[in-house]
């Protein structure tokens, strides 16, 4: 980008802005600095200049703060950096590659500023990531593309969804490692897993903050590395785990930046466009670090039926749903017939080579309720000693699953279909609690037991969905 206004010594001219740098003309000499307001202010102070020119507009640096920094010096639309960088990251994949190759030559450098190209790329990105990340990206795109939304609302929603996309990414990778660790610990009780971040994960009665979730990831990675455990994700896909551990890595710097922004909001600071821009850039770096989320999918096992006839081998009929869209095969839900049992209500994170069951940390709530379609719940924290709090990805509401201690009996008289459905529901929800309890006790070496919620035995407490 260049500016046609003549150079002058009374103010500094911004020649070009990129994702990371600003190119300025100062007294006829070109300077490049990092895209950071403090650096710009320092440069202007050193030149004893108060005005800065950009795109034929003159600004007084004293009126620029972090909130409006982005809108002053950037004419990029929401999500342009996120979209562009992620598409380029995935350029070796079929659809992103095809998209980039099909761009007219004149648009190749600036396609993200063209509405149709931007939307097409965003559609590709939404489909490229594992469903929960794709769903959050969809929200970011929706917020950013909404021309009718008031700007204050847009900024607020956008930045909060940068936080939630980051949070969900961290949670997902943490669940993967925790699930795998649970299995590894059963095989080898000597693995030292009693770490503070892991203890907090299981026993905290509030949702972990972003920084705590990141520390948990680092603790888990260290356990896996130190004990040479098998990773839940292919190591080639995971990349260099030091990137997630070293504080000065690009990934951790981006995480720290987002966490800092989140803390600002908690301190009642009003967010501005500049904050959104920073959040977008940070999230881009984080998702680049989690690139492996593009080569896995989430599959829920809604139901298993069992059939056996006389003199015939038994078989299991598994009702599976793939959450990601498959443009080519259009395979979203299918039945699988085989003779091996499986863990019911599983939510698999899988590809051709790996498969990890994330239950009970990730649930398909509709499968537990014997309903169609799917609703994905992410574990958040404990709810006293009688339940667990989950976060619904679709409704963005917290839901509590309470332990009812429905007694397991060999047989039970059923007087109505409603009674049967209710008992079955409570048994399934109790299974969530007991599996969680089992995971916790195995990993931490504790003997904790959930207690039934005394006032509502045998009742389903989910009334605020």
């Amino acid at each position, binding site marked *: 980008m260049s500016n046609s206004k003549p150079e002058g010594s009374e103010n500094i001219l911004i020649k070009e802005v990129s994702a990371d740098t600003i190119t300025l003309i100062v007294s006829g000499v070109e300077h490049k600095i990092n895209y950071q307001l403090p650096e710009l202010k320092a440069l202007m102070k050193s030149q004893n200049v108060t005005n800065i020119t950009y795109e034929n507009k003159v600004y007084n640096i004293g009126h620029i703060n972090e909130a409006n920094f982005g809108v002053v010096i950037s004419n990029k639309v929401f999500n342009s950096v996120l979209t562009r960088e992620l598409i380029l990251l995935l350029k070796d994949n079929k659809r992103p590659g095809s998209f980039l190759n099909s761009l007219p030559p004149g648009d190749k450098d600036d396609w993200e500023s063209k509405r149709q190209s931007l*939307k097409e790329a*965003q559609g590709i990105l939404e489909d490229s990531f594992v469903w929960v990340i794709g769903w959050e990206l*969809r929200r970011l795109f929706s917020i950013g593309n909404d021309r009718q939304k008031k700007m204050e609302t847009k900024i607020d929603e956008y930045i909060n969804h940068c936080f939630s996309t980051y949070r969900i990414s961290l949670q997902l990778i943490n669940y993967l490692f925790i699930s795998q660790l649970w299995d590894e610990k059963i095989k080898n009780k000597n693995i030292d897993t009693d770490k503070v971040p892991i203890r907090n994960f299981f026993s905290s009665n509030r949702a972990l903050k972003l920084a705590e979730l990141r520390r948990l990831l680092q603790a888990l990675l260290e356990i896996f590395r130190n004990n040479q455990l098998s990773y839940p994700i292919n190591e080639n896909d995971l990349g260099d785990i030091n990137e997630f551990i070293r504080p000065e890595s690009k990934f951790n710097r981006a995480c720290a930046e987002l966490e800092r922004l989140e803390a600002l909001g908690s301190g009642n600071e009003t967010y501005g466009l500049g904050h959104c821009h920073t959040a977008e850039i940070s999230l881009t770096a984080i998702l680049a670090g989690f690139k492996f989320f593009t080569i896995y999918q989430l599959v829920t096992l809604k139901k298993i039926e069992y059939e056996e006839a006389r003199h015939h081998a038994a078989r299991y009929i598994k009702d599976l749903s793939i959450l990601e869209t498959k443009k080519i095969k259009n395979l979203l839900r299918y039945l699988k017939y085989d003779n091996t049992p499986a863990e019911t209500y599983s939510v698999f994170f899988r590809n051709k080579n790996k498969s990890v069951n994330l239950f009970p940390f990730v649930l398909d709530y509709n499968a537990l309720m014997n309903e169609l*379609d799917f609703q994905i719940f992410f574990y958040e924290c404990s709810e006293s000693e009688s339940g667990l709090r989950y976060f619904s990805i679709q*409704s963005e509401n917290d839901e509590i699953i309470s332990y009812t201690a429905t007694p397991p009996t060999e047989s039970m008289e059923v007087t109505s279909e409603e009674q049967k459905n209710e008992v079955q529901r409570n048994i399934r929800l109790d299974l969530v609690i007991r599996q969680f309890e089992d995971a916790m006790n195995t990993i931490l070496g504790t003997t904790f037991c959930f207690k039934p919620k005394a006032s509502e035995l045998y009742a389903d407490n989910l009334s605020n969905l």
Partner: protein
Amino acid sequence: MQKIYPFKFLDSYQREDKDFFFGRNEEIESLYQMIFQTKILLIYGTSGTGKTSLIQCGLANKFHTYDWLALPVRRGSNLISSLDKVLCDASDDVFIYTEQKESFIKDLTVKIEAVYKASFKPVYLIFDQFEELYVLGTKAEQELFVEAVKEILLVEEPVKVILSIREEYLGNLFEFEKKVPQLLRKKLRVEAMSLDKVTQVLKGINNFKLSNVRFRTDELDPITQGIFDRIKGKKKTLFIELPYLQVFLDKLYFETTKDASHQAEALITTEVLNRIGDIGDVLRNFLEEQVKCISRDLSINNKNVSTETIWKILSPFCSLEGTKEPVSKQELANRLPDMDKRLLDEVVDAFVNSRIVNYTENENLYELAHDALALNIAAKRSDEDIAILEVQRLIESQVAVQDEGREFFTERQLLFIEPYLEKFKPNDEERNWIAESRANVQYKKGLEKRKQREELVKTRKRLRTVYSLLSAALIALLIAGYFWLESNSEKEKAKKAEQLAMIQKDSAVLAKEVADKALKKVNEQIAIISKQIAIISKKDFDNLKKRTEPITDAGGCPNEILEQMDSIAATHPDSLIMKYDIQSIREKCPQ
């Protein structure tokens, strides 16, 4: 901050009315829970229970704007075209709507994808007043719509279908459910307003800080009960209808403030309520008041515009079944050919100003503000008005069918149609079809006569054949009778012969038994002789048996043996060997 008038009169609540939409929390929560469990959801209830408000305000506000793209679809003149238009308009110029000759939606899946990609929001297709498809739509349109829904439910992008229908028309969904079995899996019935819900509404309004209407707090309960009782009237019911409540609250406000612009602040008390007294049917009264006002106002500039004229002009806004029917001014003119067009325009504008009718700009259609008004308008119709509507319905439904499938009117239908043809203005196509139907009836009559004549000839021929056959049959019967008698006597003879044969058979059996006994005796005697001969000499006996020549030399044969041989020969003349040899022995044997 400026205060807001919280009552919506007969309009439905929209997303922005969230702050003063009360009394439906349970229904909203149920809907919200269900929407995550299905791709198609049905909401039903009687007219005026607030189904539209529940979706457009209640459910909508449970979602953030980035999770909710509501696309309301009304039937208009055709539900398929309307859906197509809505999708094209929401596709961010990827598709431009043009009226299609084909009645299906081209590239439906691609259009939905384009709508989704335009905003990245889950799409909710809301088919409000869905009963219009069955009240005003053709069978072909209904079938095409079902096919479209089947296709929509297979789309991978997040899209859901919400159908809102009056419960009187639930039965019409039978065929739909056969093809889309999940149609009725998730549904919600919206009930009329109970006293409890009315209380929630009034309390909510009272607590709403920006409301310019307040109820005296210490009188809230008696005011609520008073409103409920007045609307309920003498009916033995625990519910009142929402539009009646809305109209009555508006009336209460006006009684308090006399401000039609709804700017003034109002404090509603039991005293104001008591001033109103009994209200009868509040909606009917409102309608009649408005009709009177319009009649009076228009009569100033025009010749006497009677209330009957106003009711007549209102009638086309209501279908035969008493549901609202959107019409354009042109259609109105066609249905009321005798009315002055200028007067029609003025009356319609007056309807809009008095909030009886709403105007939809993008479709250029006028529609009653609420279904509940339609019932009252329908009740005002004369028998002739109803007959005219029935005739119109009959003609439209037939002419709407494609040429290949269209049926002519029957003679009976034509007789019904004829007297009313001049009372409305059928279009050219309809007139032509009526004329063709008449011709068809004449043609069929001619055909029928010819057929009858042919039938008569055939019948006579048949009769002649029958008579001939009968005669032949009679003769055959006589012959058969004769032969039957003959065969009977033969049978008797045969029977006797059989009996004789039986007797002979018995005799033969007896004779056989006697012979068997004799044979047995002979054999016994032979056995004795044989034994005796054996005593002589087995060898001699064997030699005797083998002999074929008489014995010439008995030499040494004892007499007693010879005597025994004699006796055997006497009693067993067939015993040839013995006889033969005995004779020889006797002849040769010295005494």
